[in-house]
């Protein structure tokens, strides 16, 4: 099994069933995974911020730009959006005892990515966001299984991007 790490603001598409895509240490950023179960193709982006400018060199970094970009990179996507499995993970936020949204990047990221998906006619089949803990996300390309690792907690496994199962 080959493991490929997706760095800050980076993305990766794989059709190699022996490959695992990984994001180490998600804080307020989002792991966006698009999975085509028929082609067994996975796209994973490490999305850092709610919005970017048009014409950005690194659209995978921004919630409002990443969805069409990643769909394009996944290519040969299923004929209907319903066949595409979508997972959104991450978006942790610091404890805030005030009212300003100065650094609620996690919450803003989570809201922005769901809005961008909806705009593309997509709904997350897995939504694992929020909290104050960092996450490490692994996507098994062959099976579509996603494993979320959080320190001190049991792994959360989303088999076939449908339902959570604790192991």
């Amino acid at each position, binding site marked *: 099994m080959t493991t490929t790490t997706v760095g800050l*603001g980076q993305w990766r598409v794989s059709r190699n069933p022996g490959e695992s895509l990984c994001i180490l*240490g998600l804080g*307020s950023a989002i792991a966006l995974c698009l999975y085509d179960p028929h082609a067994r193709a996975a796209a994973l982006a490490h999305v850092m911020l709610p919005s970017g400018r048009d014409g950005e060199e690194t659209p995978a970094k921004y919630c409002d730009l990443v969805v069409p970009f990643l769909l394009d990179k996944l290519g040969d996507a299923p004929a209907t959006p319903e066949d595409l499995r979508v997972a959104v993970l991450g978006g942790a936020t*610091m404890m805030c*005892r005030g009212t300003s949204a*100065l*650094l609620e990047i996690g919450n803003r990221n989570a809201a922005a990515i769901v809005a961008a998906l909806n705009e593309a006619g997509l709904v997350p089949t897995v939504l694992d966001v929020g909290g104050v803990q960092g996450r490490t996300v692994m996507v098994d390309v062959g099976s579509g299984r996603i494993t979320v690792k959080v320190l001190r907690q049991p792994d959360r496994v989303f088999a076939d991007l449908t339902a959570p199962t604790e192991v």
Partner: protein
Amino acid sequence: MAGPVDEMLDFGDKLPSFPTAIAEAIRLLSSESADNDQIATVLQRDQGLVAQVLKLANSPFYGVSRRVSTVKQALLVLGRNAVRSLVVAAGSQEFLSRPQPGYLLARGQLWEHSMAAGTAAGLVAAKVHYRPSDEAFVAGLLHDIGKVVLSEYLAERSAELAELLDMRSETMTFNEIELEMLHIDHATLGGLLCDHWQLPPRLGRAVRFHLRPGDAGDDWQLASVVHAANALTLAVGIGLGVDGLQYSLDEECLLRLGLVEGDLEVVADELVVQLNRAATLAV
């Protein structure tokens, strides 16, 4: 009753010490009677240290147009205070690079977080026009130095820590949990370490109050810059341990600094660019 950390603070020899060359250099850099030749001679006994100091001196935070290639040049161009901070920063790499089991951080993770926070502090300082930005860089680099000491104590009482985290993760910040368990938090202890190493008092106060910058008195600006830098580094996900993002944000201080909604996202964007550039250079 004295807690374990109170006992430790009664025994200065239990606090981490720098190797002889670094300790001697810090002493000389603080002494008005020492000249630059003496300081350079002592520093050059540790070539690894010299290399690290020069690497930091040539980082963008110092804005030096010409490459600094010797210790003497660094003293002339940057001045003694900046070189003293650089020596401490370079010397702290050994401590910060160690595994920190109490925080579930593997070898190198706290150093990575510290370097990112130093970078972020330089960016925040530039955004709010705080000068000198190199001071912000060093304060950011050292902000979590107290974890180096507290890690061992947290690891020894991991069951109690786990229980508190399970029960109070939504109501208590991690530093409040440290305070409850050990009667001191890593920020306060970091400030004490800076004093122990005879760093400039403002640096010590920025480290001590980086989690509650509103209490830093006249040094609230530097403490707030480090507060923002730490928050950004955690948000970006660099060096997340068992404490994760379980800290509170002092919005009032950030607003007083002049930051407005969206500013920190701009800084986070630039931070990611700089971290990716550094990662590329390291390969």
